[in-house]
């Protein structure tokens, strides 16, 4: 319990510091102005989301291998938290894109593959609601999660190489594409803050799932008597 509170406090502090840094430390972008500051949360959330899906994938693999319920809890925690961060990415993206590009959405490689990623994990969570028996639900969703995660690089490659005819639009191609050094530091820091927040949420979700399954077992015992 104590460790979780500490982790939560650290996450909150990091996110506040990242917000401060992205508004007051990072220099203002010359052409895009104030709205560009959403970049630090947008990209940071994208990293945290991908990492959460990686956690989910590891949980899925471990479940198929070891068949212990804790890996199923890890899988569902990773998927849900990853979905939250990907949703943040998909919402902050258009908010940033509209004033800058003049459009809310474009079928560019990164946007589209993020959206497909989002859809895949929505399907993962939907599948879980449609299988009653806990062991079967854990196994089936773990297997689907494995297939979904394998699919992600293929989706990205397919859209990158065949859909986007022109090189990617004004999006700053992450770090390394002539990003101001201060901006880069702020970006890395807010990425780190998002990942700490992600870790905190996964731990909380994991504990919740654990309690749910304990309650479920107890209920079954009572009903069996």
């Amino acid at each position, binding site marked *: 319990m104590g460790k979780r509170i500490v982790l939560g406090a650290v996450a909150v502090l990091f996110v506040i510091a990242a917000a401060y840094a992205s508004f007051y430390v990072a220099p203002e972008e010359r052409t895009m102005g104030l709205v560009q500051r959403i970049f630090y949360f947008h990209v940071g959330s994208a990293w945290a989301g991908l990492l959460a899906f990686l956690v989910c994938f590891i949980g899925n693999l471990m479940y*198929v291998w070891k068949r212990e319920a804790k890996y199923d809890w890890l899988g569902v925690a990773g998927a849900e938290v990853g979905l939250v961060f990907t949703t943040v990415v998909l919402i902050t993206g258009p908010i940033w894109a509209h004033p800058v590009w003049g459009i809310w959405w474009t079928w560019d490689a990164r946007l589209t593959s993020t959206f*497909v990623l989002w*859809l*895949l994990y929505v*399907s993962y969570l*939907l*599948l879980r609601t*449609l*299988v*009653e028996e806990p062991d*079967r639900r854990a*196994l*089936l969703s773990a*297997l*689907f999660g*494995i*297939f*979904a995660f*394998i*699919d992600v690089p*293929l*989706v990205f*490659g*397919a*859209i990158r*190489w*065949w*859909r986007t005819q022109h090189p990617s639009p004004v999006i700053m191609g992450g770090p390394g594409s002539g990003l101001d050094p201060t901006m880069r530091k702020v970006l890395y820091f807010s990425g780190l803050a998002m990942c700490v927040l992600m870790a905190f949420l996964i731990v909380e979700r994991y504990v919740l799932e654990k309690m749910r399954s304990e309650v479920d077992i107890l209920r079954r015992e009572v009903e069996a008597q």
Partner: protein
Amino acid sequence: MSLLSNTAILLGKELRTEFRSRELLTTTGVFILIVLVLFSFAINPGTEEARQFAPGLLWLAILFASSLMFQSCFLREQQNDTLSSLRLAVSDPFAIFLAKLIANTLFLLLTELLMLPFFAIFYNIPLWPKLPVLLLVLFVGSLGISIAGTAMSAISAQARMRELLLPLLLLPLLTPVLVVSSLVTASLLDREPVVQWKGIGFVAVFDLIFLTALWLFGEYLLEE
């Protein structure tokens, strides 16, 4: 090679079951036809636009049709309670998947072949010049759809609302096949046809990766 001989026997069984009733082939064929007609009502394409959009529509129709067609793939076994005896009879459960996915690919290809003439007439696209390569694209794409579809139908057959669940699981997974196959087909049916071998290769890589995943994890899909 017990895997191959088992697969051959199971494939014979799949084909016999289907060709006795021909239920899947007729319904899926008619479905693709309806979708193609409805698309042309919805979009009302001119000749030039048809060349641009039609390949994508064709692949979308195939994708939708496959998500209907693969429903019964494991459901038939479940309803007749034959899955457990199948698993007992076969030494390697991968043979069950291999037989089913080969059968699914064959069924899908057969309906596509039946529908291609209608497609060419409705959308006014001559298919002759590049027919062999087009068939290759259809084969590689349908193989990918069948591999992922067989795996997903094994999952959805064990859940509630399976008829709705299968498209939800399968269609996002097939985005790479849809994107690349429609583009390769479009450039093949262009006024100046170009064969995009890299695209065909990419779909083949998709097939290979999913086949490997099915080989590694397939047996867990059939656990009871």
